């Protein structure tokens, strides 16, 4: 019964999304207050019913209702409660439902916190969000119903993919989706602006906090995915340039360009049409990612579903939404003119470079991801592009980006002078270079050009962020949330660059075969396989090793890597043993039982790898701090009270 209620709720949510679109857009066009109010109410209704459907599916998982096909496919009776709940989004249908719920949630938040906007504009934003909801709900109901019954019911389920039975991966999709879907808000604001043919830059101010919030979630989601890949896949890698990873990274790059370009549009009224285009692009890339992952056009290790009907549907939806927005852009954007000029070393031009480099990296990654498809369509045969390509095309724009970032942060709006900061910046650059040389030579005993450049740029960005903070504090300037967020995020970016340089330059990875009592050595650390024992979990059995790590005869730590066999079958899973450190990680993963008490072991030394994720979290934190800048709330309150006064007197 409960699954049927869920299915019915989903259909009601679709009808309400249709109402939201018609009343939202129609009400704005006809300036009909009643219709616009109806559009707003539909948002709440759509959220309630989508949440009800989500709750019904969750309930089916919690109750182990194996008469529901999706539940039987993605869980089994031994699965612990936490993972039974996470299993709701462990497959194609449920993750779509999560997507729809996230979209309904954002729509509700936008509706609740946009009272200060003019009614028709607000109504258009709501209508466009409703249109996107229609697409996802219809997709689910037509091709991917999560409530499909299984007759007769399965005695037990298949189990959730063991790779997904992990805390980081349980929380990774919801956070990632909040980010992906959050760009729908910026998209809707941009489309509403274009529809109205607004010439002012006010929309940039309204969009900024929403975009920052979405971008923050996306950053955390990507970082979680990378962290998970590191300890769970057993490779010790942290980024693989897999099409699915690229699908989340491309909207992130577009979003990063967008938040920077929004700053220029808000502050100076420049780059108006470019910013609108970026807002459309960021969400289009989220949709494109969905299409790539779900249609099976690109074969990836973790592509979700390969059903041509689904591919056709997502493609049709993608084409409608994106092409509609881009045509709207072509029609309206030519009217937007940026009157003000700026000088070459003003902050505007640094942000222009920022956008150029980010978009270049984005374009090249998109090209690499779609390359097999292009070759295919042009009948040139199938050719794949791998990590060496992606590493190169990402590195080339990122180096100048980091170099300019350090100066750009200190540049003033409009004016071309660095106002006496030049000497300090030169000094900072020289110290960063000196520190990079010392770090390479003294700590790692090796000087390589690319490593030195990497360390230098990382330290330069970190130093520049600190310098900016110190100067603001010393100058007794008010420290706004936006500036503080910027400083934190850039500091985090520097840390991440430091980590990437360290781990890519000095990591040591070795596969060894060890018997109990034997030792292998990397980077001065002796890894001794001390003991092996059998372990048993709720739904798996496995082997755990004690790997004693010592340096110069002194014990450092004991790593406990596991190899697990889940009852539901499939490949054995690797749980790496990792000793976390500020300067390095020590990593051991069990390979295979070689017989006679010998095991193959993958042992790794990963210098500075933690800073990649720490940096990413700080980047996200910076985004969050900037999103909650008091300015946005004050402005909203001011407009709200003005509107209230006007309403009372009028």
């Amino acid at each position: 019964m409960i699954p049927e209620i869920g299915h019915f709720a989903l259909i009601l949510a679709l009808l309400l999304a249709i109402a939201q679109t018609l009343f939202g857009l129609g009400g704005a066009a006809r300036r009909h207050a009643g219709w616009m109010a109806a559009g707003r109410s539909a948002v709440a209704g759509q959220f309630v019913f989508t949440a009800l459907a989500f709750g019904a599916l969750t309930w089916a998982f919690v109750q182990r209702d194996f008469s529901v096909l999706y539940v039987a496919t993605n869980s089994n009776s031994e699965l612990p409660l936490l993972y039974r709940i996470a299993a709701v989004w462990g497959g194609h249908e449920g993750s779509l439902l999560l997507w729809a719920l996230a979209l309904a949630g954002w729509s509700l938040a936008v509706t609740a916190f946009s009272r200060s906007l003019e009614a028709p504009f607000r109504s258009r934003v709501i209508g466009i969000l409703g249109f996107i909801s229609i697409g996802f709900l219809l997709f689910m109901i037509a091709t991917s119903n999560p409530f499909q019954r299984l007759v007769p019911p399965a005695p037990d389920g298949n189990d959730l993919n063991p790779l997904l039975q992990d805390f980081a991966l349980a929380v990774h999709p919801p956070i990632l989706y909040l980010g992906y879907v959050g760009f729908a808000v910026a998209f809707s604001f941009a489309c509403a602006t274009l529809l109205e043919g607004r010439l002012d830059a006010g929309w940039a101010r309204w969009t900024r906090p929403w975009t920052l919030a979405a971008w923050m979630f996306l950053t955390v989601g990507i970082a979680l995915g990378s962290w998970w890949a590191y300890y769970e896949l057993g490779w010790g890698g942290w980024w693989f340039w897999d099409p699915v990873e690229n699908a989340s990274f491309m909207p992130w790059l577009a979003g990063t360009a967008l938040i920077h370009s929004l700053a220029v549009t808000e502050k100076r009224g420049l780059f108006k049409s470019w910013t609108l285009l970026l807002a459309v692009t960021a969400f289009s890339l989220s949709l494109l990612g969905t299409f790539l992952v779900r249609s099976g056009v690109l074969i990836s290790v973790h592509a979700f579903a390969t059903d041509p009907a689904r591919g056709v549907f997502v493609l049709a939806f993608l084409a409608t939404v994106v092409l509609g927005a881009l045509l709207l852009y072509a029609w309206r954007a030519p009217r937007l003119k940026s009157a003000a000029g700026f000088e070459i070393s003003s902050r505007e031009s640094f942000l222009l470079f920022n956008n150029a480099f980010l978009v270049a990296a984005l374009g090249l990654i998109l090209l690499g991801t779609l390359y097999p498809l292009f070759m295919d369509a042009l009948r040139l045969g199938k050719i794949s592009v791998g990590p060496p390509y992606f590493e190169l095309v990402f590195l080339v724009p990122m180096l100048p980006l980091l170099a300019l970032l350090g100066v750009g942060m200190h540049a003033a709006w409009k004016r071309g002078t660095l106002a006496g900061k030049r000497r300090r910046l030169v000094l900072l650059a020289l110290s960063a270079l000196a520190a990079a040389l010392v770090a390479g030579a003294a700590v790692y005993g090796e000087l390589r050009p690319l490593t030195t450049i990497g360390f230098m740029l990382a330290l330069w960005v970190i130093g520049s962020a600190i310098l900016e903070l110190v100067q603001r504090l010393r100058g007794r300037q008010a420290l706004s949330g936006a500036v503080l967020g910027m400083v934190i995020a850039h500091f985090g970016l520097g840390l991440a660059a430091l980590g990437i340089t360290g781990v890519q330059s000095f990591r040591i990875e070795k596969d060894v075969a060890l018997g109990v009592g034997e030792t292998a050595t990397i980077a001065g650390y002796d890894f001794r396989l001390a003991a092996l024992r059998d372990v048993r979990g709720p739904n798996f059995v496995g082997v755990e090793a004690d790997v004693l790590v010592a340096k110069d005869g002194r014990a450092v730590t004991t790593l406990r890597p596991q190899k697990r066999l889940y009852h539901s079958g499939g490949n054995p899973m690797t749980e790496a043993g990792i000793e976390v450190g500020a300067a390095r990680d020590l990593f051991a993963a069990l390979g295979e039982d070689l017989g006679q008490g010998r095991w193959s072991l993958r042992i790794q030394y990963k210098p500075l790898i933690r800073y990649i994720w720490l940096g990413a979290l700080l980047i996200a934190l910076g985004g969050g701090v900037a999103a909650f800048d008091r300015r946005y709330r004050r402005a909203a309150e001011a407009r709200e009270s003005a509107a209230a006064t006007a309403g009372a007197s009028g």
Partner: protein
Amino acid sequence: MKVPLRFLLPAIAFTALVVVFVVGLRQDPGRIQSPLIGKPAPAFANESLADPAWRVASADFAGRPWLLNVWATWCAGCREEHELLLAIARENRVPMVGLNWRDDRSLALRWLEQLGNPYLAVAFDPEGRTAIDWGVYGAPETFLIGTDGSVRQKHIGPMTRDIWEREFVPLLPVPAGEG
């Protein structure tokens, strides 16, 4: 109203992309000819899967026809075709070399131990660099390399008896004794 071209460019570029997607969705990935066919086979010299100290190089097999089969333990199609590969290996008409792609060494070795090993040698390609040279798009893929060192035939997806008999066997030299 006339729209300046540069504002239409994003829409045009996106339309082109959609066309590519439509073509991509309609194509059967198994039926695409490899651009490599007729061209010299890309050379490789990788670690052997069985023993990191050994090298498995394409040059080792020069001068006679040989098969290159790209596989991985995470690939369901590879499991599907494995029985047939064993049967082909037993026929002993052409040596089969494996390319273990983006895989875990220990898992791969266990796979061969449990399911049987049809390969004369297996090159280990954990990062997929060799596979890129060969234009590998998904596993499994099977290539036939001729006596002259050029790629003669390629099949994407699990090998079937029918495809083997129809597309590969006619290209093999006639076994001594039958001719």
